[in-house]
Structures are given as C-alpha cells and as structure tokens.
C-alpha cells in the first residue's frame, strides 16, 4: 500500500474531525429581511424631504431594531454587525487588549472574507449621512475604522452614539454640551432620565444618547436593543421610543425640518412657523395599553386647539402629526396626559398568578375610595381570545370580591382586566396577568429549545414569539439560575406571555470539577439527608447544604407550571478516567457500608472476590490504574457499582429539594456525559426510574433505556427526549430534518434543539443560533421545525405516543457490571460497541427488543421470551447464570458475542465461562443444543454490523441471524428491503388496533454536501438524491395500509413499494379492516352554547388518533386538536362570532371525516 495515500487519508480525517467542522447552515451576515412585520404604530412611515441614510453598528437580535425603527420611521440604513457589546469583530479582539484571537463557535467567515467585507463596508459608510452606534462603544473600534469615522465626521457626517452601559463619552478635541431634541421624550418613562449631549467635530456633529444604567441585573445576555433602553418593553411607549430615535436622526441630518414647536396636554398645538399649504394635523389619544382611544384630523394652522373628549385615567399620550397635502409626515410630537378622577381602580388582588387547568380563580378588585358603578371583568389570552367576561354591579363599596371560572382552552397566559365603568363611560382599567399550567400533558410530540428569556425588551420578546410560531413548545432558559430571585421569577412568566412553557436549567451538579476544583467530595449530601430523617432541610427550614438555586426558581415558577426541572446539564461522574472519583475518606467509609449490605459477611466478600480480608475495615479502594496494578479488580468493580448508587442518591437528594417546594415537579437530567464510560457513573437501569424527564444526547443505547425505564406517574407523565442542533457540527438540511423523526421512531416524545443562541450577541459572526438579525428563523432550524410541524399536524406524534414499540420476545442483557468488566478486559470488544451492534442489527430487521437488567435477570428470564442476547456479557452473577441456563433448558435461545459469564458480577474472572456447559464450544457461529433450547456463540460475527446495516451492507449477517432466530421461533412480521433486497432499518409501534411501520430514510451523500458562504450566495443550497431510497415493505399477511405522511390509502396488500425522500420519516399504518369513519356528537341535546361554556364532544370510531377542527360561522379555523380518547372540549371565546359553528373530526388514518354543527349564542 502506498504509504502516502494511506496516511494522507488518516490524517485528513483527523484534521477534519479536529478542526474542519462543517460551516454549513444558513448564514445571516448583514442580511436584514423586512418581511416580518411586527405590531407597530407607524409614526412617520413616509415623510417629506430627503430620507436620512444611516450606517448602523449593532449586534445580535438588537439589529432587529433597525427594522422596528423602519416600520415606524422613514429612513435608509446600512448595517455593520459587531461581535458583541464590547468587541468589534472576532478578527479584531486583540484591539481590546485581548491578545487571544477567538473565533466564535460555528463561525461564518474567515479572516480573508472579513477583510473583503470590511473594505466594502468602509466604502458604504462614505455614502451615509449618519453613523449610529447602537449600544457599542466608540473606543471599541479598531483604530483604522475609528479614524475613518472621525475623518467622515470632520467632513460633515453625523455620529450618534448610544453607549451600552450609560458610561460618559469623551473624545479628544470635542466639547460636548447638553442638548435637547425637538421631541417631548420626557413623556416616555424609560427616556425620562436620558442624558443627551452634542459636540462638534470639524463640519460634523456627534450626538451622545446616554440611558441611565438599569437597576435590574440582566447580565450581558439580557442587554438587547440597539436603540431602546434596556428593559423598556411597553405596549404604549415602545412606539414612541422609536419615534424619539427618528427625531434624533432628523436632528443630526435635517434639523431645519422641525416645525412643531409645542403640543400641550390640553390639546393646544403651536408651530414654529406658518403651516405648509394644504397640510393638516392628525391627532390621537393612546391609552397605557397602546390602544388608540380617540383620534381626529384638523386643518393645519400655526396655532390650533384640539378638543379632547372626557378621557379615562388610562389615557396617557396625545400624539400629533403634521401631514402634508400628499399624505407624508412633515413633523410629529407628543404630549403626556395625566387624567384625574375622584375614584379609580387601585389593583386586582389574586392569591397567586398561576393556575391549574380549570381551577377557579378568585380575587379582589379594590378602588381608591368607595364607588358605584360596574366592573367589567374579562380575560384575553395570548392568542387574543377573550376567554372570560363578566360584569359586576356594585355601589358604595371600596372593594369587590370575584370568582372567575375560566374553562381552559389552550391558553398559556391571559391578561385579567377590570374596567371600571360609570354611566356607561370607562373611568379606569387595570390588568393583571394570569398564567395557566399547561405542562402536565406530554401525550403529543413536544419541541423544546435551549434559550434565554431574561430580557424584557421588544426584540427579545418578539424572538420568543417567533419561536412559539415555529412550533417550539418549551424553552429551557439557561439564565434564570444565575439571575436575581426576582428576575428568575420573571423569566418563566415572560415565556408564558409568548405562549411557551418554561423548563428549569441547572448547571452540572456533579462531575470531575467538584473534586478537581472544589477540592471536596460531591456525594455527601444524601447521607446528610438520611441522617436528618430524610429531609433536605434542617429544623429551621434551612437547606442542609447551600441553597440549591433551582429551589429558588421553583418557588417562583411552580404555580405557573414548569415543564421540567433539570438536575444538571451534562452531569457525569467524571470526564476522563484520570478524574475518576471519589476516593475521599467519607466515600471509602460509605463504600465499606455498601460492601456490608452487598455481601453480608466478610466471608461472602472473600468468596466473591477470591480475597483474604479479615474485616471490611481493611478494604480500601484506589483508582483504576492502581487497583489493576495491585490486582484489586473486584474492589474496583464493586466500587464503580457503589459510585453509581452514590451518583443516583445525589440526584435523589436534589430532586427531594425541588419536590419540597414543588410537590408535583417533573424532575430529571439531560445531556448526560459519559454514559457508556466506566467512570461516568451512569447506571441508567437504576437511575432513570427516579426521573420523569430525561433528555440524553441521542444514542440508541441510552434512548432505549429512557423509553423502557422512565415511567412517570398519572399526575406527572414522563417527558422523554433527546438533544440535537448545531453542536453536532452539521447543520445541512438533511442532517437537521432527520432528527425529529429519528427520535420519534426511537420512542421519544420530544426533541430539544441546542441552541437558540444568545439574543444579545448571536447571529452575527456565528450561526450556532436559530435566528437572523431580523428575527427570521434560519433554515438550519426551520428544516427541523417544519418536520416537527408534520409530526404534530398529521397526528403522527400523537399516534406513536399512543402506541408502544413492538416487542418480538427478544431481551438484551443490560448490566453495568459488563461495562466495568469490559474496562478490565477490553480486548475483544467494549460494552457499548457490542450493544450498538446487537441493537443495530435488530433495528435493521425491524425486530423489537427490551433490556433485561441484572436484578431482573437474577429473578429469571420472563416467560414468553424467545431470545436472550448477551452483548459482551462477561460479568454475570451466579443467579444470572442460573437464569440463563434454565431459560435455555426450557427451550429459549441465548446468543452471545464474546466471553459470556467469564467473570462474576464483581469482576472475579473464572478459569472458564460459567456458561460453558450451555454454549459447548466458544467457536464462531457455534450453535449448541442445551436442554430444549439453543446457545449461539457469535464471536465477531456481528462486529461492525450496526454501521454496515445502516449503509445496507449487512445482508449476509442479517440473513444468518434471521436463520438463527427462526430456530427460536422469532420471525419478523414485517420487513423492509431496499432495491438490492437488503433489509433496511425501521421500527414498529403497535396499539390495540394499529400497527405503524416507521421508516426514516437515510441521508444522501449529496445532501450532506451543503455548504454556505458569506455574502449573497450564503444560503445557496445544493442537495441531490442519489436514487438509493427505494423500499419494498413486506407484511406477513395482507392488510389495509395507509401512508400517513402522504395521506394515501395503499390498498389491501401484502407488500408495497415506496420511494423515500432522503432524511425524512414515513409512517405506514396497517389495519385489519379499512379505516373507520369517525363519530362525533355534541354532548348536549340543544347543541346550543353560550360563549365561555364548554362544548363537550363525544368522539369515537377511529383506530388511534383523530384530528378535531373547529370553525366559526365564517369558516375560519379557530381550533385544532389532536385526540386519542373518547371526548373532546371546545370553549368558544367571548370575542368570537355567534352563529352556527362546525366541528369536524378527521381520522388521522385514512382521513375520513365527520362534521357536526353547534350553535354559539
């Protein structure tokens, strides 16, 4: 072999894996798409005169404010994105005394491209009237760009600087003076304290807008908004913050155009000069909720007086615009309104702000003095539906108790509004948010994301709404843990307001760092709790150890609902073997106590170990290398098993803490690191049953453990999922879009994307995020969200979660003793490699299996089992061996790859396998009879079969294995073969009436080749299908087959052909009889309902899942529900039309529909 080509290949591979991670995915550099129109008030959408052109420097989703401003104010822009608030670009970090040049994760350009872009931008800057630094320090510019800017100012261009942190701005040779803008910005609460100053430099001017530093701690990641002050979200004033910014632009580029001299709260308007010919004033009064409650037009004169009607207390702003004869805005101004009334509303008092589904809400409305009138109480939810309305008449009372029974209909949040009305006129209105706990239901596929919701600014909140609109159900916020208690309570509510559920993130609870950095044992807490009668708190209610931050979050979030509490991101016993822990004196002592429990007596231990200890006190354990060098194999294996228990107990300790605050908390872990490593301390068979939530990095081995071992409870149904996203280093379409299907077909009920990106900084130099600077979600995210949409809308998720993975009476031995003993004796295989091959080959044959762990195998092989597989099961207890022997004796088949039962479960190696009598000879493919059964020794027959089967290159192995299985009576009921007749992977889900065959097409090589580049061609995609996606599905007997994705009936067939699309899932439901026509009835004789009353439906006659669509009298779809039970409910909202409504029930299989009508009064 040519050494050069051989080594070239290897090293190229290493180089690629180490450094060349794919730079694919959509690139959003400098691309601002204005197609997303957000709610706004167009203040000066078209204006007279010349539009200013600004070069704007901003970062992250703050760049969106460029468009927010443009929606309200007429200007042109050019965008120059910066890395973050303090640094100009990843290529200029050294400029800021940061010597280390750091390229962002998933960087979108190289330095050479950046230099070209920079040159282009410098040229563009010359074409602008104005340069605007949207929360970026002038001092952070690289010198050459700063000098260029100064040169342009000197020549006459304007510069607006909005410092990020409220710091003062000084510049050599520039004297700044305090200045006013021709706009009443003091009327805007968040601008009232703004400090504005101006300086002259050559022919140009520099305007500095200093917002006072905010009091609430939001961290760097919460600092969102290029123009607006941080935390300035407001339904009324946000529009006028943008109006202020527009005025600043005019102030710098065309100060002479200012014509409105003054607008006073009593309606008097004065111009600086005569009004232009045929111009007019338009005016409007806006209330604090941003509603326009009065408006009018008047011919423009130098002085006019607007007659305002009697206004409610909620009226806050008078907006006046001078409009030209050709309907363009000449100038605008605002005046604050301060309406006084003798009695106004004081507040709405509720015992809590979070409510369970259908829980009756009771509270009190208070007035500033005894009053008479009517209170109109209503609630409008996050979809704009008025879900409650009731009037309360009262007289001479200072407060009013109320009880509101709101029948829940999907709302995540609502504004509970009390309007105080006297003589038919609105006097005052106050609102308070109410949140609904929608976290209990996990019966449909759930889409989650790692994100941040700690910023109360318009653009950050719009981003959350974008996520909700693209099918995200739940956000694991990664900042609440570090925020103040108050802010940690704000975050879940902020998400609810966007229609999203909240999940609590936690940093790694345990790992090497605890020992390495904290220099103390991480495992002592459970013992503390045991000594404290099982409570994590002392007698005074204080935590036994330091305050667990997640309990702080729980206190504020439990009422509104927490999807799950994560006990730690990437928890692990240790990262690497060198960090194996813990060997402290306490752990050694607890280990000896464990040994007493495990072995009973020292004699038993000596028998199990083959040792000669005189007492347990003699036993001390050491890390792996030292243990091995001293021949202490059993001590080390037992210690690993003990540490797995400690690891589990530690999680239980923290779970107990959370449960002490939120008794119905769904608790679990995610992103577990090192689950197949001997020092990782994960024993999923023992650990997972303690959780209701688990989201590993996807590997079939762990995914199946989560599916099999996590049961949850009736009140806390489990949430099973896995991560995907840009961390995987691939963001091409096919890679991204296959994952939702892959996880669903593995039995998972959810999928979680890492990461949305940090709103404050993402989407500039890195595309490890989901959004562009314009809020448009990037295709490397939407490719996945589109697939999730299909999974949800076609009720595929609902159907599969209402089914169970098929079980073909095959068990796989799943024991951590084998993991550890494989570390001692690894030469044949590793635990995870053998498991992957066993699982992979079964998956490729469509055969369903379950794990059997050590404890259960010791009790005997369950009746009905036909095949027991032993993947590198070197370590087996005597009881396990006895169970296997008995199983085979009675007619079962045992299949092993290497060295079955060559050691006991503590790692004491036997002179020969304890199952030698069963297997006979340990020769490749030796099939031995034992009793009525068979013992099959594969040796390396399956080695590498997982990878080969995924490529369709395991036909021989598959045939051989099927031949063996046949002897045990295992014959696949279904098979899927490609155009070469080779079995291909699929999974089968069954419920009482349906069998679902789920096929995920592989990616094509061409599809994986997508690359992006900076510039206009950035999003160019090249995908191709190479024609290897043909499949024939063969059933055991003819059945009625329905293609759910394509909405097609394939007939009563025994086999059918299908052309798959690459990297997306297809699901074929097989029925004994044709799919039924569903039935739906209204559970009320009159079929007439009031708004707010529940329309109860009785549904049935469908095999698995059905889709209910409710339409209003105009035919507009108001609600869609995916159902599996025999009842459904719809509650018409108070702001929806009366008349004849339609409810249509569609069988998710076959698509037969039944419609009924009901009347809404």
């Amino acid at each position, binding site marked *: 072999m040519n050494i050069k080509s*051989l080594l070239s290949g*290897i090293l190229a591979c290493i180089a690629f894996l180490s450094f060349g991670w794919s730079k694919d995915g959509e690139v959003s550099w400098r691309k601002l798409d204005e197609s997303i129109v957000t709610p706004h008030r167009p203040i000066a959408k078209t204006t007279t005169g010349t539009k200013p052109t600004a070069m704007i420097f901003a970062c992250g989703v703050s760049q969106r404010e460029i468009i927010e401003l443009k929606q309200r104010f007429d200007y042109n822009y050019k965008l120059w994105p910066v890395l973050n608030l303090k640094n100009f670009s990843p290529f200029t970090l050294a400029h800021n005394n940061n010597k280390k040049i750091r390229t962002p994760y998933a960087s979108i350009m190289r330095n050479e491209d950046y230099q070209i872009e920079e040159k282009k931008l410098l040229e563009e800057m010359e074409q602008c009237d104005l340069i605007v630094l949207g929360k970026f320090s002038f001092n952070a510019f690289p010198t050459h760009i700063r000098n260029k800017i100064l040169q342009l100012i000197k020549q006459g261009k304007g510069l607006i600087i909005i410092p990020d942190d409220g710091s003062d701005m000084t510049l050599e040779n520039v004297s700044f003076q305090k200045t006013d803008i021709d706009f009443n910005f003091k009327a805007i609460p968040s601008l009232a304290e703004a400090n504005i100053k101006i300086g002259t430099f050559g022919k140009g001017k520099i305007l500095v807008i200093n917002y006072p530093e905010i009091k609430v701690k939001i961290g760097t990641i919460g600092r969102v908004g290029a123009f607006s002050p941080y935390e300035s979200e407001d339904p009324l004033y946000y529009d006028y913050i943008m109006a202020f910014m527009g005025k600043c632009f005019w102030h710098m580029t065309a100060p002479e155009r200012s014509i409105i001299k003054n607008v006073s709260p009593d309606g008097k308007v004065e111009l600086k000069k005569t009004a232009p010919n045929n111009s007019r004033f338009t005016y409007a009064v806006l209330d604090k909720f941003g509603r326009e409650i009065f408006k009018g037009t008047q011919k423009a004169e130098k002085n006019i007086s607007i007659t305002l009607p009697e206004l409610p207390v909620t009226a806050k702003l008078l907006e006046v615009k001078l409009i030209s004869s050709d309907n363009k805005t000449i100038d605008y101004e605002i005046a604050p309104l301060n309406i006084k009334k003798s009695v106004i509303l004081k507040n709405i008092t509720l015992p809590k702000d979070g409510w369970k589904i259908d829980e009756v809400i009771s509270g009190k409305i208070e007035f500033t003095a005894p009053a008479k009138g009517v209170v109109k109480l209503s609630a409008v939810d996050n979809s704009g539906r008025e879900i409650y309305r009731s009037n309360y008449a009262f007289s001479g009372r200072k407060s009013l108790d109320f009880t509101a029974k709101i029948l829940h209909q999907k709302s995540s949040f609502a504004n509970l509004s009390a309007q105080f009305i006297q003589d038919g006129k609105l006097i005052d209105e106050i609102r308070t948010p109410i949140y609904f706990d929608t976290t209990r239901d996990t019966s449909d596929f759930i889409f989650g994301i790692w994100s941040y919701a700690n910023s109360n600014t318009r653009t950050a909140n719009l981003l959350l709404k974008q996520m909700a609109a693209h099918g995200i159900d739940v956000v694991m916020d990664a900042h609440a843990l570090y925020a103040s208690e108050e802010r940690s309570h704000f975050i879940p509510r902020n998400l609810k307001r966007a229609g999203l559920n909240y999940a609590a993130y936690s940093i790694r609870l345990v790992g090497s760092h605890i020992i390495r950095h904290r220099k103390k044992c991480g495992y002592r807490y459970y013992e503390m709790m045991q000594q404290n009668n099982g409570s994590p708190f002392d007698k005074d209610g204080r935590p036994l150890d330091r305050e667990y931050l997640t309990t702080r979050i729980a206190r504020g979030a439990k009422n509104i609902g927490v999807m799950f509490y994560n006990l730690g991101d990437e928890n692990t016993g240790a990262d690497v073997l060198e960090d194996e822990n813990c060997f402290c004196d306490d752990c050694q002592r607890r280990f000896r106590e464990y040994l007493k429990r495990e072995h009973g007596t020292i004699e038993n231990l000596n028998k199990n170990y083959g040792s000669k200890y005189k007492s347990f006190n003699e036993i001390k354990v050491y890390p792996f290398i030292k243990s091995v060098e001293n021949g202490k194999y059993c001590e080390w294996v037992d210690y690993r098993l003990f540490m797995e228990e400690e690891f589990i107990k530690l999680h239980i300790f923290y779970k107990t803490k959370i449960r002490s605050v939120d008794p119905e908390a769904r608790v679990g872990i995610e992103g577990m690191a090192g689950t197949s490593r001997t020092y990782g301390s994960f024993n999923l068979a023992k650990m997972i049953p303690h959780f209701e939530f688990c989201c590993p990095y996807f590997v079939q081995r762990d995914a199946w453990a989560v599916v099999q071992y996590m049961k949850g409870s009736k009140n806390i149904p489990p949430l099973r999922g896995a991560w995907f996203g840009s961390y995987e280093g691939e963001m091409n379409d096919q890679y991204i879009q296959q994952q939702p299907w892959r996880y669903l077909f593995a039995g998972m009920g959810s999928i979680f994307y890492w990461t949305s990106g940090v709103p404050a900084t993402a989407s500039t130099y890195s595309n490890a995020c989901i959004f562009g600077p314009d809020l448009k979600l990037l295709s490397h995210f939407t490719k996945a969200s589109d697939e999730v949409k299909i999974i949800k809308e076609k009720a595929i998720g609902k159907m599969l979660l209402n089914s169970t993975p098929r079980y073909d009476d095959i068990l796989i031995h799943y024991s951590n003793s084998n993991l550890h003993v494989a570390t*001692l004796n690894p030469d044949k295989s590793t635990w995870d490699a053998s498991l992957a091959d066993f699982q992979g080959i079964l998956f490729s044959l469509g055969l369903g299996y379950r794990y059997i762990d050590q404890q259960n195998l010791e009790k005997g092989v369950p009746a009905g089992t036909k095949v027991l597989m032993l993947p590198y099961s070197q370590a087996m207890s005597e009881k396990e061996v006895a169970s296997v022997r008995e199983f085979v004796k009675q007619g079962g088949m045992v299949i092993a790859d290497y060295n079955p039962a060559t050691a006991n479960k503590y790692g004491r190696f036997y002179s020969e396998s304890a199952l030698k009598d069963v297997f006979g000879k340990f020769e490749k493919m030796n099939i031995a009879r034992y009793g009525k059964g068979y013992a099959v020794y594969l040796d390396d027959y399956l080695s590498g079969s997982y990878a080969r089967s995924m490529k369709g290159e395991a036909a021989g192995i598959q045939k051989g294995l099927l031949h063996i299985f046949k002897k045990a009576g295992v014959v696949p009921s279904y098979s899927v073969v490609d155009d070469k007749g080779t079995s291909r992977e699929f999974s089968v889900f069954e419920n009482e009436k349906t069998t679902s065959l789920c096929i995920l097409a592989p990616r094509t090589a061409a599809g994986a080749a997508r690359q992006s580049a900076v510039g206009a061609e950035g999003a160019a995609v090249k995908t191709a299908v190479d024609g290897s996606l043909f499949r024939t599905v063969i059933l055991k007997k003819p059945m009625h087959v329905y293609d759910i994705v394509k909405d097609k009936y394939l007939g009563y067939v025994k086999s059918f052909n299908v052309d798959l699309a690459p990297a997306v899932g297809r699901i074929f439901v097989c029925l004994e009889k044709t799919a039924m026509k569903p039935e739906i009835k209204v559970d009320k004789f009159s079929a007439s309902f009031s708004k707010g009353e529940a329309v109860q439906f009785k549904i049935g006659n469908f095999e698995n899942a059905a889709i209910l669509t409710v339409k209003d009298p105009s035919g507009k779809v108001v609600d869609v529900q995916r159902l599996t039970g025999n009842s459904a409910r719809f509650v018409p909202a108070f702001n929806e039309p009366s008349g004849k409504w339609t409810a249509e029930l569609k069988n998710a299989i076959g698509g037969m529909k039944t419609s009924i009508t009901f009347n809404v009064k």
Partner: protein
Amino acid sequence: MTMKKLFTTIICAATVCGVTAAESVLRNGDFEIVEKRAKATSKHLMGQIKQGWNIGNNGPVLELPKWWLVNNGKGTLRIITAGEKGENKENVKNGKNSLYFESRGGQFMCTAPKFKPGKYTLKFSAKGKGALSFNCYCYGINPKTGKVARFITSEKIHVLKDDTANAWKDYTQVVEIGKKTEGAKECTFAFYGTYGAFYLDDISLTPVK
C-alpha cells in the same frame, strides 16, 4: 564584580544559551514521560488494538509515551524502562526509557505541537533491524475556517534501513520540511515501519538557524 556587571553577564549568558541551545520541536522524543491509561477508555486505541496493535501488555492498562500515538496498521510497541520487567540498560540509550517499535504497516506519531516548515536537524538513536520511514505531514489553511487544519500531503524526510541489532547507533541528518509542499503552514512528525523492529531513543527535530 559590580552588580551591574554581574547582571550583564547573566543576561548575556542567558541570551547566548537561548540562541545556541535551540530546542527540539518534538515533545518527549526521549520517551521519558510515560502515561498509563485504561485501554477501554479510548475508542481510538481500542480500534488500534482490535486492528492488531499490541501496546505494552495484554492487561487492561497500557503505557504510551505522552504526546505520542499509534495510528493504523499493526505492530508491537513497548516502553522499555531500564531495570524494570527484566530490561537491562543495553536497550535504553539515555535516561530511563526507550521505545521498542515493531511495525507491520503502522505508524507512531507525535501529536503535539505542530511546527513550521523549514530546515531541521533530525537526530535519533536506534538499535535493531528493518526499515523505518520518518515522515512529516503538512497542513495548510482550511478555506472554511481560516485556520491551519487542511491536510495537504505527507513528506518522507528520512529512511532508516539498517541492521544494528547489537549496538545503538546515532543518526543525524539535516532535513527540509514542507519546502516542496505548496501552502504548507504547519507540520507534524511520525515514523512508520514496514518490517523489522527497532529500539528508539532521543528523537529530536531541531530548527537549523
């Protein structure tokens, strides 16, 4: 001697040493730093072992010189420590350790650090019989990342074909690394064997001024 003179002398001495005593770009070329690790914890090493590498011994723990890695092919590799496991001083040239390398198409590479292309003095001591090829691997800029990561090609810099079974022999050769490879920015070092076995010690690659 005045203090000023003393300091000046020290600084001059340090400068001269710095100039003249150029360091090898290869780390641990004398194999004195040895790492023990569990075989099962490295997928890469398990792959090599399954492919036919015999590293150290048959137990669960293997020993490798720090910053060196086996890659591809098969062979036998052992750290020889004078005075341990029946080894005598004759199989160690200098220091405590040497390396026994018996390759059947496998290579042993120095994983860190990468070094710039240029003129170097390759020195090593060997005892044994067979053929060894010393190579460097050249990397250029990855256009996607702008970082030096793109493997371009390998260059053979020295071939050892010898039979010195009974005596250590020192080898010295000035080599040009990366000169023929257009776009090469950084290089790594490895050796590769097709037949025979050698004891190796004190491998160094020192820049030539």
